């Protein structure tokens, strides 16, 4: 059995995340995102690779969305409503609640402001979200008889999850985007130690290692503070959910402490509405926020107000959160057009900006003029601040997670090719785990774990559960090790389930009679000096323990001795049939009548040889 991992999007790039994994014949699609930097057909993953006829229902067992960012959920309405996928769609409760807001916001921007043709409508979004089955953390869902999925906390944004999927004995984890450190309002990613055949991890910051984020938070706050203190306006272009809440918590808190009276605005009612959701979904935030929320809900921002279009040209300082992020279109771009020419003002860009957006242009280098999409140019004299903390894990986090899970294979997606390649080298050399960096449209195949199932007999299980302690003295301390091994016989009968039995039971299972094969020999031994029978046995046993290496425990009793299955007793018969050659006439010779089983063949010969030497 094998696992095939087909990357439809976010292979060696960031945007339109979409990975289809086939585990033992079951196809699962993880994420269904759109590319924010593309305007053409490349904006969506190429679903035609999956099914030429467009019959996705019979191709894909289920679709799982990890979080509500557009590059993870953006193509969902298109896929379900336009391409016609009708199978189950899973996402976490917050993602289900917040995705429609994100999708609707983005659709509006695209259609209203940029005048594009609609790829999906509001009705599409609504009917698509109706198909979504909500997931709780760690809830184990049996999608069908074989496929089991489970979500783990990923920390990246509210409701972000990593997904564990298991078919038969093969299991994988798709991380989505995740954060290994706690931030202002979210906890760090948390997952069980699972046995995995494949880990598919994001790698946005595949080569960056970040220190504490507090200095970076301070930098951001000081940049904003300096701007408003100087009478300037600070623009923070961000999507309505996620970073906006985190930065706003930071600013609101700072405003309280510093007693700043400058207004903080949200560009649309959307963000205010989003805060409502955040308040209800408090159980998905960090421990710290959860504990405090009864007395003070941190999403009740005291200094935050709604923004009105007329305020763009109003005098005096302010801070504005405007959608969408990356300055890719819409209101934030419009405000930017007005505010960018003033050197007093500030544009703070949180997070990653996809190539092709104005945000990306501002971040790469210090442009003095920027081309907007419709051909107009804008002078950029304002300050640009790049918020240097990010809800993505850094290289160390990826390495830590990989080490913790120790999967058999790893696939990297959602990153930039050069840094992914260097992370791949690091993973292969440091952890010795095969690592793949497929491009879009490529498939990676890895082997999967399988177990053969068999019935076990009680006797076998009983013997398996008996410890077999070995004591050994190493230098000063006594060491005890449990050296039990399960030793049984696997019996397969045609058209019946395999059975594991103990070796003593085999004949019974086969309806045969045991036939014991043993060895016997009446061995002559020489009596040294004046010793009685008991003394002789003692002598022999000393001799045996000296010369025979594997004779651990020798049991003596009067005229008998026993080592494992080897039994020897003094033979008093005149003519023993087991005796060869030497007669008993010589008074100095006594006989030890021995027999031993095949299992102790070597041991038996060892003892016989030792006793012969004595002769």
């Amino acid at each position, binding site marked *: 059995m094998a696992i095939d991992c087909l990357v439809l999007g976010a292979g060696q790039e960031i945007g339109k995340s979409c990975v289809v994994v086939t585990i033992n014949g079951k196809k699962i699609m993880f994420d269904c995102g759109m590319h924010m930097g593309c305007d053409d057909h490349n904006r969506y993953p190429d679903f035609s690779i999956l099914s030429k006829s467009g019959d996705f229902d019979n191709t894909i067992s289920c679709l799982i969305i990890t979080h509500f960012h557009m590059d993870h959920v953006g193509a969902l309405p298109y896929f379900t409503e336009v391409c016609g996928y009708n199978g189950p769609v899973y996402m976490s409760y917050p993602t289900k*609640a917040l995705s429609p807001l994100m999708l609707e916001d983005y659709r509006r921007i695209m259609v209203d402001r940029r005048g594009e043709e609609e790829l999906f409508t509001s009705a599409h979004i609504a009917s698509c979200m109706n198909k979504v089955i909500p997931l709780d953390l*760690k809830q184990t869902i049996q999608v069908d008889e074989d496929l089991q999925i489970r979500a783990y906390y990923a920390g990246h944004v509210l409701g972000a999850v990593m997904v564990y999927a298991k078919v038969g004995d093969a299991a994988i984890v798709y991380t989505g985007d995740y954060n290994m450190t706690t931030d202002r309002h979210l906890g760090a990613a948390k997952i069980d130690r699972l046995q995995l055949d494949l880990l598919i991890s994001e790698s946005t910051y595949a080569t960056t290692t970040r220190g504490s984020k507090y200095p970076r938070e301070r930098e951001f706050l000081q940049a904003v503070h300096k701007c408003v203190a100087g009478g300037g306006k600070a623009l923070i272009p961000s999507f309505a959910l996620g970073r906006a809440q985190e930065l706003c918590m930071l600013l609101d808190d700072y405003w309280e402490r510093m007693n700043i009276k400058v207004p903080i605005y949200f560009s649309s009612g959307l963000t205010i509405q989003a805060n409502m959701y955040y308040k209800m979904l408090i159980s998905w935030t960090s421990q710290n926020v959860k504990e405090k929320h009864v007395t003070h809900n941190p999403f009740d921002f005291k200094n935050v107000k709604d923004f009105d279009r007329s305020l763009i040209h109003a005098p005096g300082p302010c801070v504005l959160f405007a959608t969408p992020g990356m300055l890719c279109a819409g209101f934030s771009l419009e405000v930017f057009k007005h505010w960018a020419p003033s050197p007093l003002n500030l544009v703070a860009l949180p997070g990653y900006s996809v190539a092709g957006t104005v945000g990306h242009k501002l971040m790469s280098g210090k442009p003095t003029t920027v081309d907007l999409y419709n051909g107009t140019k804008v002078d950029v004299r304002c300050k640009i601040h790049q918020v240097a903390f990010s809800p993505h894990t850094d290289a160390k986090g990826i390495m830590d997670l990989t080490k913790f899970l120790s999967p058999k294979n790893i696939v990297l997606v959602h990153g930039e090719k050069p840094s992914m390649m260097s992370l791949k080298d690091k993973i292969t050399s440091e952890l010795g785990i095969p690592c793949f960096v497929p491009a879009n449209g490529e498939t990676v195949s890895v082997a999967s774990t399988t*177990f053969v199932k*068999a019935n*076990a007999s009680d006797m076998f*299980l009983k013997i398996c559960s008996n410890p077999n302690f070995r004591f050994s003295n190493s230098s000063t301390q006594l060491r005890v090790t449990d050296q039990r091994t399960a*030793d049984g016989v696997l019996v397969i009968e045609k058209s019946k389930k395999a059975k594991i039995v103990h070796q003593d039971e085999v004949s019974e299972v086969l309806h045969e*009679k045991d*036939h014991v094969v043993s060895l016997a020999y009446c061995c002559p031994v020489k009596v040294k000096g004046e010793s009685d029978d008991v003394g002789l046995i003692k002598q022999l046993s000393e001799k045996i323990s000296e010369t025979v290496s594997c004779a651990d425990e020798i049991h003596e009793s009067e005229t008998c001795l026993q080592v494992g299955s080897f039994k020897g007793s003094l033979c008093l018969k005149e003519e023993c049939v087991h005796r060869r050659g030497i007669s008993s006439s010589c008074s100095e010779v006594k006989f030890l009548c021995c027999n031993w089983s095949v299992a102790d063949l070597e041991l038996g010969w060892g003892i016989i040889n030792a006793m012969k030497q004595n002769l």
Partner: protein
Amino acid sequence: MELTCLSKGDGFHYPPCHMLNLSGFRILIDCPLDLLALTIFYPLPCDVGIEAYGQNDQNPIQKKQKLERQMTPDDLVCAEPWYKTVKALHLWEASLIDIVLISNPMGLLGLPFLTQHPRFCAKIYMTEATAKIGQLMMEDLVSMHMEFRRFHGPEDSSFPCWTKNLDGEEVPGVLKNLVFGENGDDLGSWMRLYSLDDVKSCMKKVQDVKFSEEVCYNGTLIIKALSSGLDIGACNWLINGPNGSLSYVSGSIFVSHHAKNFDFHGLRGNDVMIYSGLSCLQTSEMTENDCISTISENNDGSLAASLLDNEESLEELEKLAFVCSCAAESADAGGSTLITITRVGIVLQLLELLSNSLESSSLKVPIFVISSVAEELLAYANTIPEWLCEQRQEKLISGEPSFGHLKFIKDKKIHLFPAIHSPNLITSWQEPCIVFAPHWSLRLGPSVQLLQRWRGDPKSLLVLEDGISSGLGLLPFRPIAMKILQCSFLSGIRLQKLPTLLSLLQPKIVLVPDFVNQRINLSTMKTKSILSYSENKTLSVGRIAENADVEIMAELATKLSWKKLRQRENFGIARLKGDFVMENGKQRLVSGLDQEESSGKARTLRHWGSVTPETLLESLVKMSVTGSIEHRRGENGAEGKSIIYITNPSGGMIETSEMGTAIITDDETVASKIFQAIDGILDGI
């Protein structure tokens, strides 16, 4: 598997308590308190020194007369209350319990008594919501109890002094029964209440789970909580072990208007089902005909549909609406309403309904919620959409709060106060009003003072939990002029639905309480066997699965060297060596460390069949070992045997019979040749 029912419980507030022995692990299911027994105590008087208080110094002649007469409030015990735990639980050694499963917040209330035990070391599982709500309920209990402690002063003795005067003849039988039990051995179950620290340290030991989360105990048992619908966070348990699967189903509600519905699909096809829903105790309308008519050869879909009919849930909604209308009526007449119900889900729904109906009517009546945990509980209820029914989850999607009380609290239509003596209460107090106040036993908390205040007012209304008025509950407040509304809300599976549920879930063995078996004929069920259990008796159930499953790692399986049998062609056998591990409830064989070395010297250790001396000698000759055969007949019925005397290359002999073959020689090479020859003739491993 062994099941001991420690207590069959009594209604919603006193869930059943069981001890289960499974795969060698001892599992305690629920640890409740019998809070109804609190009614033997006298509530705190409103004003010290007046009324009934301090009348215990009556002369003995008066006391004698108590025999054979109505009980008076003076009969109640005037002392700091003690709490009645499950008696039989004290007979078990705390350190020998491996796992504690808590199904709902009520089943948690007695747990601090157990975790206090210095040697207690079990793993405790409950859902996140049960843990949170249960902790709040315990904290509330402790804070209400504090008032008693302040009043009666510290009591150092660990002996229940208040029982001293209770064994006299003049003490009413009802009271005696509650204190000493029917057999007179209940005294040991009374405990002094735990402290806030005990609650905290108890909750620290808890591992909380989500619905359908799989937790693995000791690598052996996989434990899963599935929603029961009884209350927010309440669950049934599913335990999967190497010897089969077991489900524990207690009070469950198919369609709930607050909590997530009873998830019965997850319980299908188990080996054993323990059914302990005891709601049927209350349903007297049950008749034999009802149940038989439901069992027809329906398909699963229609069976499930018949379970999910909304008749029951509509009935529940009607009850709630009735309470609301009664409250509105008495408010209209200028009377106040005291609601002592403390079931979280019911309170939340009532609050929502009441405030909505008051909003739409012209009545301007304030609602007060007086409880030390009201604020936290109400805030919490709006942050747990995952634990609620679908309609309330839909509210999350449309951005509305799950329960509607939030906006009324903001608009100052619902007032929250931690206690009746809270500083601001008096300023916002106005009558008539509607008050939600614990405790339902009418012995603790603000409900006592309010009841004392309004008991003489015929316009006022008292809303009670079921069962409280029939016992001692109202005794200290008599005579009562107030109107009394006693509500019995659904707290389990209706008996007539049980057969349908069982035919849908199809467990191999069902364990039901004895009184259920008496009331209902389950013999027509598709299940293999139905066993009934009784309180304080241990019921043993034999093993269900034929043989335990073992999974062999593919890498190990491919390395096996198979032997074909000469005698039986249908069989293939192979020696199997590996490390036996128990992980995630599965028994597995994986490649061991000494795998390589042992595979080299594989030798046949077991043989079967019989050897004819002639064939043996024939094959020995091929290996240039020669000898002669002698047959010996068995004497006195003993088996005959044959002996081959080996003459070349060295001396030796072979004794062979039906039972076995003995090789007698001191020459190792000869012995190994003979062995080889036997191997060539017999099948072996």
